[in-house]
């Protein structure tokens, strides 16, 4: 796959709203889990994004991506944390991923290992995500490997970065986004959005600085499974402020999980209406079935409006 034959790049640049979903790899040596997971996801997703040990030690994002491709999934995006691999492993896995026709690599720092994963572990943190983005772009554009070695073949994947809409001060937020884009990020996947007003403020700031034109912004929605999860998100603040109305709705619902899907779907519909939004990413957790439900309720299936990038 080269940059020209990259199907995800073509979809992203077509101007159509892209719809992607997360795959959390299994917690065991379980190829059947991945097969079932894939079957339960809608067939026409624009891409599946495989997470890289986000919350626990799970099967590798590399092998899960490969298994998903075997299931006939065309666009499988691989997340890579700078926490778990040093620059040697990052570059090596990126080349391997390119050989497997992975159309994009999402560069993330990863949750800190002391938060729920493995407090005793030493982290690599050899490169940071900006440096990884830059190094991957160097491979793609110049065929340059680590230390300037010439690659025998250039990879053709896109490079994705994570954006936190709720990071404040806004000036610092924009400085960091600009840096990720300057380093070579083609698209920005945001943290899950629950506070729409906060997201609008951020988008306005991106628009004013022209950053929304320099990388495709793909906000993320996440159905909350139950009140306990809602409270945890509010307490930790990892996805920014969780409005009290969200907690009240989950608390008052006869079926909390269904209400979580409804809240995420309403958010997806609102986000879709923003002209700068180039796609919607759905965090499915361990429940792939909710992806189809969100797509249907939010009306973000086939026939999405074409937008000019």
């Amino acid at each position, binding site marked *: 796959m080269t940059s020209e034959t990259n199907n995800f790049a073509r979809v992203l640049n077509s101007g159509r709203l892209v719809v992607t979903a997360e795959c959390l790899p299994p917690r065991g040596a379980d190829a059947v889990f991945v097969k079932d997971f894939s079957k339960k996801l809608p067939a026409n997703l624009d891409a599946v994004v495989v997470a890289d040990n986000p919350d626990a030690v799970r099967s590798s994002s590399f092998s899960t991506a490969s298994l998903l491709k075997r299931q006939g999934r065309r666009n499988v995006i691989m997340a890579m944390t700078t926490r778990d691999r040093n620059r040697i492993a990052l570059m090596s896995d990126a080349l391997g991923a390119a050989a497997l026709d992975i159309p994009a690599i999402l560069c993330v*720092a990863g*949750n800190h290992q002391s938060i729920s994963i493995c407090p005793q572990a030493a982290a690599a943190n050899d490169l940071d995500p900006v440096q990884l983005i830059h*190094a991957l772009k160097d491979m793609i554009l110049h065929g340059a490997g680590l230390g300037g070695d010439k690659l025998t073949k250039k990879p053709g994947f896109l490079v994705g970065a994570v954006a936190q809409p709720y990071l*404040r001060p806004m000036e610092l937020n924009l*400085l960091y986004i600009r840096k990720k884009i300057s380093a070579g990020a083609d698209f920005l996947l945001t943290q899950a959005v629950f506070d729409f007003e906060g997201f609008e403020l951020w988008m306005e700031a991106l628009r004013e600085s022209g950053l929304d034109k320099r990388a495709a912004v793909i906000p993320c929605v996440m159905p909350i499974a139950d009140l306990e999860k809602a409270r945890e998100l509010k307490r930790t603040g990892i996805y920014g402020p969780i409005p009290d109305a969200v907690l009240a709705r989950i608390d008052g619902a006869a079926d909390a999980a269904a209400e979580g899907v409804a809240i995420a779907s309403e958010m997806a519909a609102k986000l879709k209406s923003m002209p700068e939004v180039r796609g919607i990413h759905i965090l499915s957790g361990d429940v792939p079935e909710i992806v189809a439900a969100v797509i249907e309720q939010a009306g973000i299936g086939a026939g999405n409006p074409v937008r000019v990038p």
Partner: protein
Amino acid sequence: MIVASPKSITELKDIISAHRKVLFVGCGTCVSVCLAGGEREVGITSYAVRMARKLDRNPIEISQITIERQCDNEFLKELAEPVSKVEAVVSFACGAGVQAIAERFPEKPVYAGLNTQFLGVLEEQAVWNEKCLGCGDCVLAHFGGICPVTRCAKRLLNGPCGGSTEDHCEVNPDRPCAWQLIYKRLKAIGQLDRLEEIVMPKDWSTAWYGGARKVVRKEHQV
């Protein structure tokens, strides 16, 4: 300075359980200042160990001495005589001091009485904070004098992680986010443009990753 903290009496007692005549050696430099291994702490610790061993019906004889600097050969000379009279030595210095004594007295068991923590600063009474990792290639000039290599839990060199808040670090709420501090500081000194530059991957070969390091200053050699 080098900041250290005392090992528990239980652990210390366990380490020297086989010995009946031991020398406790304090260090008069960093660990005295950080109230971990100076003359006063060595006195209190040896008293506690003596008491504990007595209660165990396994009495121990502990002698004490505190020297100026255990990491300096010049000061180790005065240990020759007291060391010759004991079965083992417990050094209340940083890890460098412990190893210096062990090298000086190859025939004697030498144990560490402290846990060496970090290079840090006393910021309020009895509170020390880590500031420097000793990476061998100081980058403080780029970051307004605040070290992200040491003070960002994810060692990010280009900006804050998604868990950063204006009040604290996501990993430990007792700690400020280094990137918020860097941002504020660069803004205050009119150098915010530094945050526009992509900081390239650090060369870690100057840090510990190349193995234990050595500094040779030829101009000072005789």
